[in-house]
């Protein structure tokens, strides 16, 4: 990149750009949120102290699924409406370690 590294980046950016950057953060956090929510039923305990009921888990899983879809719609809409290519480039530089961390659990699987 011809731009100087992080130190050269502005501290304050326009409102739209700022919003977009937070949306990128949200897009990156969404799968983590989803993974955590999908893991949650593993900790559930049924009414009688035994296993949780499949029907409840099913309803929960599909509710979370719907929530994730809705959030994804919102985030991608906001991301799509503002086109800031520079941001995208910056994100790529930052994104590298992030995605390395993200694919970590996959490797460990």
């Amino acid at each position, binding site marked *: 990149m011809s731009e100087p590294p992080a130190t050269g980046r502005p501290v304050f950016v326009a409102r739209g750009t700022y919003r977009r950057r937070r949306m990128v953060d949200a897009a990156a956090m969404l799968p983590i949120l989803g993974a955590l929510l999908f893991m949650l039923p593993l900790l559930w305990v049924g009414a009688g102290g035994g296993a949780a009921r499949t*029907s409840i888990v099913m309803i929960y899983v599909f509710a979370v699924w719907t929530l994730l879809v809705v959030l994804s719609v919102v985030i991608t809409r906001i991301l799509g409406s503002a086109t800031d290519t520079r941001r995208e480039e910056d994100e790529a530089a930052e994104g590298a370690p992030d995605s390395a961390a*993200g694919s970590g659990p996959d490797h460990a699987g």
Partner: protein
Amino acid sequence: MATLNILVAVCVAYVVLLFSVAFAADRAARRGRGAWLRSPLVYTLSLSIYCTAWTFYGAVGFAARSGMEYVTIYLGPTLVMIGWWWTLRKMVRVGRSQRITSIADMISSRYGKSNLLAVCVTILAVIGTTPYIALQLQSVTLSFAAFSPAAGAGRSVQSIAIYVALGLTLFTILFGTRNLDANERHHGVVIAIALEAVVKLLALLAVGIFVVWGLEGGLGATLARIDASPIAAFEVSGSRWTALTLLSAAAFLCLPRMFQVMVVENEDESHLRTAAWAFPLYLMLISLFVVPIAAVGLDLMPEGSNPDLYVLNLPLLAGQDGLAILSFLGGFSSATSMVIVAAIALSTMVSNHIVMPIWLRATGGAAMMSGDVRHVALLARRLSIGAVVFLGYLYFRMSGGGTALAAIGLIAFAGLAQLLPALMGGLVWRGATRTGALAGLGVGFALWLYCLLLPSFGPGVIVPQSVMDHGLFGLSWLRPQAMFWTGGMDPLVHAVMWSVGLNTAAFCTVSMLSFPRPVERLQGAQFVNVFEHSQRPGSWTGGLGQSEDLLIMSQRIMGAAEAQEMFARAARRQGLSGYLPEPSPEFLEFLERRLSGSVGAATAHAMVSQIVGRATVSVEDLLAVADETAQIMEYSSQLEAKSAEQARTARQLREVNEKLTQLSVQKDGFLSQVSHELRTPMTSIRAFSEILLGGGLNAQELRKYATIIHAESLRLTRLLDDLLDLSVLESGQVVLNVQTATLDEVLDRAIAGAIGAAPGGLEIRRDPGFEAMMLRTDIDRLAQVFINLIANVRKYCDAGAPVLDIHAEPDGTRLIIDFVDNGTGIPIEDEALIFEKFSRLGDARAPGAGLGLAICREIMHRLGGAITYVPGQGGAAFRVTVPQMPG
């Protein structure tokens, strides 16, 4: 059975529909009317080939066996898809910028276009996909059998499988190999897949709705049924839940068919934005009714019936033949779309990475020029499609179709997940090397084989029971399902953990210890920093390739018209006419990438390099170039210095030349002057001597003429003396007569010698301060200099009342004596000349041969001192510097 006949008819009609839709889409796209073919919706629907017959039939079977666990297979891809910003975006960008044709091409391209790696990935992909294709054939035959229980195990089922396999091969060859450029979208295929995606979703939803509201009478009743079923309790092991989610996420990225639709067939990166939410929605909808169908099936179907076929059998049981046929079509769609895309993906890999390199090597590159590469490549791809589908059929026949569908699917997932470290590591880590990727793949593949695939055929079939119980060679830590003493785990979780874990470990360790080749480093930077530069740095050195050969080769691969068009465009861009552009690095770069879209990066690279002469740039080359550049720069700075020096020299030469020219003019002037000077006395001497010879003169006259003759001869003698003196001084033959005297004495002598007793109006001001200083030099010569200077003032000083200031001052070991008059001085342009021989200022205003100052300079030079003209002193100012000789 009437239903079976109707089924066959519907099936044939559906296949005809698929063919015509694909044909129409291809035609529309070729005529440029297929904008809607490129919509994000079609892209999303094409992703749905993730949901194969394994989803359509197997998910219900999976749920009937282990409850909610089936959903992990769809949660993984959901998480990957909503996290598209992290990985998919990069993968798609790399795939587009590098014109990637398959996952093997992607990994090979990342690790320095290594064909070895591509071959390994291809083999792994074939091994991992073949059972999967078998699975699809099995599901189609099973579903046929469901309609005619009587014909279930007979020959007709086998023949159905072979018809299906043949039909699929035909369709794939027809629509999947229209273009050689695998990078171009197969519109026909994609639109058929999209249609099938809709069909299978609608079919499953229809069955689900029928089961929930038709058979059970509502949501509440269905939930109650689930609670009453054998799968009521959520008894999922945490490790399996997590491992399956991660495994499906990994497989979603690594499955060759997913890679094909997601990356290779991707038309527009922004489609990912839509797919990011639309595909999870699709997955959610398709898995929505799985548990209800399973619960109801477990309740209604007779004991021992195959839960994998509940989707089909429930409508049949309820007498809903129409729904059953729709359901069948759904399953058929799932199976066929998977086989079609998998066959395209695998055939691209097999033909580009195995067949073409072998063919190229076998023909030694000669065929590249004479043979029709395009034909060979297409033929290779078509044969590969047939081979891949046939392999699947063979596997189906061999395995006998006994294994539960889900088990095969998960084993295939685990096998392809071995690609994940190399794929993801290559995208985010520049340090990943080819050796590391090979090591990781090797370790992961071996462990997958040993721990999962081979034992899956059952104990004793391939892996003996003794090895299962006591480990390989009796080593207890090598038991296939309890590696490194880790017992008590689910075999799948165990195998995935060790294979992917050690795969990653080997990949990272070997990458860190090995050193990448130059091409790997270039490609690594290209992949990891794809968002910073989407174009590749030059990797060809131009000038060696033969444009014509390249054109011939490209024509063979891309087709004549397209290749010529491309070459002509490239030529125009270079400002040339005709069809042959200069083989510049940019052009070779571009050409290689275009070709890699057809035959894969490694092969394209090999083909171009065979013509261009393997002139790829290595880091060593780059270093050499850098060195050369540095040398050139140094050389040019030397040249610059030299040319500056030359400029200085030239200026000096010009000055000298100017001086010489002036001198030459002066000399000419002087010669005529000397001739005149010599002639004048000679003329008078001759004239007066003739008068004397004539006689008849009185004594007074005699005396007068003799005096004139004498004076003239003295003048001549003086002139000749001066000339002689100068030549002696200049030739350095002068002998110094060193004496000691005070400056005072020398000046007195000089003034007396120059002006005698008659000062002639010249006032001489002296500065007695330092005149008492002792000088030890050739006093006579010094006095001669002083005399000359003082005489010059007398001759040339044009002031009304001429004044000469003589001022002396010591300067270190030297004594400086200034002679300054109050005249107009010497013009600047003449200053350089006054000390030259024969120079006379202006025209001969005053007598003299112009040798005085030249003689002075020579004398001072011999005395070790100097005489200079000091400008800007208010008049002519001469500075005589005399060294005070010691002793």
